[in-house]
């Protein structure tokens, strides 16, 4: 199995790095945070058409580029670093992976190419974003595919063209597609702590969905691992940026006649943060390599999500603390990352849930062995 990035992957990272440095400055992030849809259609079409990013991890036969979780991780790490605002995670990652894993062949042929080329923005509706075993409690599909129920948190729900929906059926879970402007759909923008990722409540009243697949628990677990590791990459990207900028701040800020970064209290805290970041990065990259190598269930995706979340949040707390009062102001950029860290921490399962899952898997694999 891979242990470090290949030369091609390093080159790809450099390209993506430059793109988001240019197109996702904090000025742009702040402007988009104030809008309702929260993204810039021009940047979206550039990253879709010029770089082809939304199709990176999707299969070639469905219009994707046929790369995997490692290359997707590279993109998300750069997005987390620059706090990219746009429907990449909701459409390419969540809806894209859901179609790859759950949809029938015909639906994949029909829908994935549009997601891969960015011409359609989809989002996935799960009625619970805490753990796979709780999905399917609130949205119900009747025998003719009419969907009823409500999902309290849908990423980019206000700007999506299409909803991909996991709904409860008489026996098991089905996958449905529904146009955002269909009858009986009510989309209500929700205020989120994180203004850089828009969320909505989506309520469905006898809406006529198209059934496009079946969702097994096993596939849902695999889906959860893939999206969790993608999100972990976003988090370590954000955490690394915060550490860089915080350390720079301590070198330039003078109190008591010396840079505050020369005080051991701050040095030691930064050293601990670097260790936590190195460990979270190691875990996240390893999880990506594992997912790329095999579809065997391992502890590593949950380990990555738990570690990256704790690391990002610790880093965000420290980034504010080490700046003192200025770090708590709206004008200073630090809170933008703090808020992303808080929302990423709980999205797709807070760390304690992933740790619980790790032990479940450890015990299972021990019994097998």
């Amino acid at each position, binding site marked *: 199995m891979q*242990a*470090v990035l290949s030369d091609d992957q390093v080159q790809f990272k450099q390209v993506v790095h430059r793109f988001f440095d240019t197109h996702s400055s904090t000025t742009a992030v702040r402007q988009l945070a104030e809008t309702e849809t929260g993204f810039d259609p021009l940047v979206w079409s550039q990253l879709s058409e010029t770089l082809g990013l939304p199709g990176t991890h999707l299969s070639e036969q469905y219009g994707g580029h046929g790369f995997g979780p490692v290359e997707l991780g590279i993109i998300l790490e750069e997005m987390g670093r620059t706090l990219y605002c746009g429907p990449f995670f909701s459409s390419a990652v969540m809806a894209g992976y859901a179609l790859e894993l759950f949809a029938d062949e015909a639906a994949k042929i029909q829908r994935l190419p549009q997601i891969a080329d960015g011409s359609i923005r989809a989002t996935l509706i799960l009625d619970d974003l805490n753990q796979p075993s709780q999905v399917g409690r609130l949205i119900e599909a009747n025998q003719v595919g009419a969907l009823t129920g409500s999902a309290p948190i849908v990423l980019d729900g206000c700007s999506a063209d299409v909803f991909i929906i996991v709904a409860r059926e008489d026996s098991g879970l089905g996958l449905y597609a529904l146009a955002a402007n269909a009858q009986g759909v009510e989309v209500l923008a929700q205020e989120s702590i994180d203004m850089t990722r828009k969320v909505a409540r989506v309520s469905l009243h006898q809406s006529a969905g198209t059934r496009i697949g079946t969702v097994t628990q096993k596939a849902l677990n695999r889906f959860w691992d893939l999206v969790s590791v993608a999100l972990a990459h976003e988090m370590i990207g954000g955490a690394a940026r915060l550490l860089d900028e915080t*350390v720079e701040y*301590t*070198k330039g800020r003078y109190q008591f006649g*010396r*840079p505050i*970064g*020369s*005080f*051991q209290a*701050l*040095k*030691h805290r*930064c*050293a*601990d943060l*670097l*260790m936590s970041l*190195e*460990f*979270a*990065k*190691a*875990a996240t*990259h*390893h999880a990506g390599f594992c997912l790329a190598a095999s579809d065997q269930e391992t*502890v*590593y995706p949950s*380990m990555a999500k*738990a*570690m990256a979340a704790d690391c990002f949040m610790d880093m965000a707390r420290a980034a504010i603390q080490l700046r003192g009062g200025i770090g708590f102001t709206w004008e200073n950029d630090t809170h933008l990352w703090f808020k992303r860290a808080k929302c990423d921490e709980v999205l797709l399962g807070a760390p*304690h849930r992933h*740790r*619980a899952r*790790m*032990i479940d898997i*450890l*015990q299972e694999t*021990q019994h097998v062995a």
Partner: protein
Amino acid sequence: MSHDWISAELGAFLDAEFSPDLSLVEWRRRLVSAGWAAPAWPAAYFGRDFSQAEALVVSQIFAERRIVGAAQVGPRRLAAETILAHGTPEQKQRYLPKILTGEHAWCQLFSEPGSGSDLAGASTRADRKTDHWLINGQKVWNTSAHHADFGILVARSNWDLPKHQGLSYFLIDMRQPGVEVRPLKQMNGHASFNEVFLTDARVPLDDLVGDEGQGWAVATTTLSIERQGFARGRSQGAPAAASAGRVYEELARELEIDNEPYTWYPQREGRPDLILQRAQETGAIENDAVRQEIAKLFCLTEAARISAGQVSAHQKSGGQGMLPAGSIGKLGASVIARKAAHVHTMISGASAMLSGPHSAVDGIIAETLISVPAISIAGGTDEIQRNIIAERVLGMPKEQRMDTGPFRDIPRNGH
């Protein structure tokens, strides 16, 4: 040198010279004179100028054929590599062969009661007399000093220079009246280290290593070898130790003495390897709070393992760039050890009070609980590691120094 050439050459030597009925010293003398005891050393000094990769082939052949190699364990390696790097030709001729044969044991005399983390603040005196150096002072944390024949010693030869410039590096005969070695009992009951009292001890002028005042530079070599050893882990004794024959019996005795100070070292690392088994045996695995803590520990141990593997893969692929591997790894080991002790305590509950051979895992758990404080001190405290990470990796500004100028004017313990 190709693998086949080494294999043929060494094979012929071993066929002709090795016998399990030789004495350990006699066998190693043959190894030394043929250059197989330390093949990576210069051909002029008992080696064969082999690369590290070639030397690895040699040790693999030794392991496969269950052949006893040169004496390795303990501080003797530190002495050997330092003498090799900085010693005079006479010092190399005189000391290196008997280190390789195991005839001479060595110890390291660096730390002092008054200078621990601040090693360069050593205040043991070295006064130059007409035909010798006179040594006075106290050293501490001296592993294996109680059966050492010689010591590598850092002492202050000039008190008017700044502290790093006034040190000199010596080779000292431990078997003399001015040297007194006392075992130092630790909080876990073991006595792996000693205190060494030096009272008018003598060092011949020839046994200065490097020039007078160069002691810190020479000591840096020793310390970097020591750190590599930390990273590599300690020799657990050759597989050959189990075989029959005089050479193997004598090796087993040597290893028993050499390894004795290190028997509790696995326990200071917290024994995370025993956690899952203990949690299942005791039923603590069913408790949600315990499960969370086990998972946190597992995250740390796995991330440390993966991270180390990624660093070595990066280096193997010729990767550049500073990777903060050493100090982060050491700090990580401390965090893991503390966490593991915490989880062992949760799992054991009240029975964590018990120690001794009748307590959990033959006393290993109890020994773990009272040994982990060592790991965040030995080989550089956690606090020093954090300084290194902050200053050398993150580039944070150094603290203002209070120890510049002549050493005699620097405030120090008891002055």
